[in-house]
């Protein structure tokens, strides 16, 4: 399983702060995004950044390992 987290406005639009996506060999970050974007198009309208295991992930073709923690985030507004 891939653990996918949502925060703030993205979590509100998804209606959840965490979902599980089944892992498959050769899975890439873009596969998880495509799958979730179809289910939650309004949430992904405001997604600007992704992180994998707590690190910014700029390259959507990044291969994922089983049990990765993936986060799709809108623009930060802290501070």
């Amino acid at each position, binding site marked *: 399983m891939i653990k996918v*987290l949502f*925060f*703030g*406005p993205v*979590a*509100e639009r998804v209606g959840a702060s965490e979902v599980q996506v089944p892992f498959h060999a050769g899975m890439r970050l873009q596969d998880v995004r495509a799958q979730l974007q179809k289910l939650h198009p309004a949430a992904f309208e405001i997604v600007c*950044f992704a*992180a994998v295991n*707590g*690190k910014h992930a700029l390259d959507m073709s990044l291969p994922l390992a089983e049990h990765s923690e993936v*986060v799709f*985030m*809108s*623009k*930060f*507004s*802290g*501070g």
Partner: protein
Amino acid sequence: MTKGEFTDAVRIQQEDFSQDEEIRALQASSKQMGGIATFIGCARDFSEGRKVTQISFDAYGSMALAEMNKLRDEAIVKFALQDARIVHRVGVVGAGEQIVFIAAGAEHRAPALQACNWLIDELKQRVPIWKKEITPQGDSWVTPHP
């Protein structure tokens, strides 16, 4: 005073913080500190024409803390600081209350002030925290200006 008395230099917490305690902890790292600059971000009670009663924060805690620690390390090197501290509150903060605290201590005043400015600018860009304004007309997530 031993270092053990003080809280961590980088923290995310629900509770309010004391500048006096933060400054004391910062100063304990060196008596060569000639200048300390701080920035405090506060919750305003009005935003874009609407009354705001509270601000609620959501954070990707582990990554936010890691990014804040990275920012502190970078600032210490970049501005030759003697020490720096960053505290960000999460949960619900009332109008007029403190949200974020940054302190930078250096031998002279210019790098301390520059570092403080750089740290708050970078924090807003890099640290995964989101704020929602709670108003009598309902809540809304803040969209940062580009």
